[in-house]
């Protein structure tokens, strides 16, 4: 074999190494996106679990807020049913749930007895922290999606991504008005 043969073999080997490297990076980034999505899911489920507890405790004190309480329960059930939907559709119902929840917690201000209830305080701490966790996991998810999507679109990794069908992922954007500008309550 002549020099040309070695050069060709060398180039092929380098190409294979680069190819494998790109493929592995894509897989790693996609896994990070999936893992981040699972994190959001955990927190959303935790919120479904906490809401009935909150409504149950609040019911006894908030006689005049039946409408608000029902709206919260309804939004929760709707969000739970949308559990299998994609990131975009899910973000919408979850955003609505966040906004009715913050409305409920804003009127709690008018019920000092409820505010002194130990059980309520505990649920409230959990719920407000869960809200934070949702927004932090969303933040991490969106960062991961951005990195992954960039990778699938820039040259040369877009070639590999096209060959193995690495599709771009959807962002988890909140559209409901109540979520963006946090009201008086410390919910974000």
């Amino acid at each position, binding site marked *: 074999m002549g020099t040309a043969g070695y050069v060709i073999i060398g180039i092929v080997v380098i190409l294979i190494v680069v190819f494998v490297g790109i493929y592995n990076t894509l897989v790693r980034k996609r896994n990070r996106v999936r893992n981040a999505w699972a*994190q959001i899911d955990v927190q959303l489920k935790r919120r479904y679990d906490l809401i009935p507890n909150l409504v149950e405790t609040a019911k006894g004190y908030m006689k005049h807020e039946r409408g608000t309480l029902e709206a919260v329960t309804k939004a929760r059930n709707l969000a739970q049913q949308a559990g299998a939907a994609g990131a975009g559709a899910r973000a919408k119902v979850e955003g609505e749930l966040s906004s009715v929840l913050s409305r409920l*917690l804003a009127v709690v201000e008018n019920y000092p007895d409820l505010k002194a209830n130990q059980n309520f305080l505990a649920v*409230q701490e*959990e719920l*407000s*922290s869960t809200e934070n966790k949702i927004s*932090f*996991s969303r933040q*991490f998810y969106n960062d991961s999606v951005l990195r992954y999507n960039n990778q699938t679109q820039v040259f040369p990794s877009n070639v590999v991504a096209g060959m193995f069908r690495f599709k771009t992922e959807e962002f988890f954007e909140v559209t409901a008005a109540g979520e963006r500008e946090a009201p008086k309550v*410390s919910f974000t």
Partner: protein
Amino acid sequence: MWEQIRSNQIRSAVLVVLMGLLLLAIGYALGLYFLGSSTYGLILALVVWGVMNLVAFFQGDSILLGLSKAKKISRDDMPRLYNVVEEMKIASGLEKMPDIYIIDDPALNAFATGRNPDKAAVAVTAGLLQKLNRDELQGVVGHEMAHVKNRDVLLMAIAGVLLGTIVILAWYASRIMFYSSMSGGRRSSSGGGGQGQIIIFIVAIVLMILAPIAAQFIYFGISRKREYLADASSALYTRYPEGLASALEKLGASTSQLKSATKATAPMFIVNPFRKKGRAATDLSSTHPPISERIRILRSMAGGASYFDYEKAYGEVRGKGKTVLPAAAISAAGAVALRTARPEGPVAEPGKLERARETSDLLWRNSNYKTIRCECGTKLRIPPKFKAPTIRCPHCGRVNKV
């Protein structure tokens, strides 16, 4: 976000080697002086260096936590702190929840330690829990979580243990040398006498004095840059630099000194634990960047919460052209919007008094005291040694069952 980890790992290796060289220098001097042969001293130092590295790697975190008298807590002990830590764990993308420790001390401080992100711990003082609101606590915990995420923790543990070894060795050696030269007796049996011995003596003394200082310089040189990086990461995680800025303000203004801090553990803390009695933490400490400057940088981050914004703010505060973060970290980040301020709402945020109560309850419980609520509203703290079946309330005289 992932690139600075690699540069940190390289620096960790460099640091371990440099510290090792210093230890060898001490061994050399000790060998010359006490054993009459530098070889034995070098071998001894090498063995000590190897053993201490192993100890630091496997036990460094527990040694440091033990030295700081930190106590581990669970979720039920303090849901608020646990939640804040979990929030930051999620924001930083760490996979495992770090252990949480409390230091029973009114000073305001915090540190992180551990071997790797899977085995990490975050420790905060009781004072911190009492004085900071949720946003501020989040900023501080975010800073500590960044140390875990950026793998600063292993470096800090190893450097802390090695520095401690060097300081202790040099201290004892210089004491022994001092006394033995005072009494005139010398164990060195190698002849030659006169001038040669005096030169060896001087070299040994100089090394003894310089080694610990040099070790501290190496340690500080690296820890300072890491503080900036951790601040930048905290701002990125929380999207709210003001939280950390106002926490640092409180930490800097506090005048109480952390009792359990030592020279070797000092650089691990978020702010330097040492201060002159009754005085606020000064800007003139070599272990940490000046607090006022860190606050100014955080408050100059008007455009966003990304590393790029932090770097820009750093340039504005320190003067154009100065850089602090690794270039790879800055270019990798996209635009990141800041979170709007969250007024300390009375609903989800316990006030100062509740925070103080919550923390003291936790500390009592941690030392195995039982708490009984008397009907008159008094809280009775029952020490673990108390064996009687009932106790009389000192306020109203009711008899309560233990």
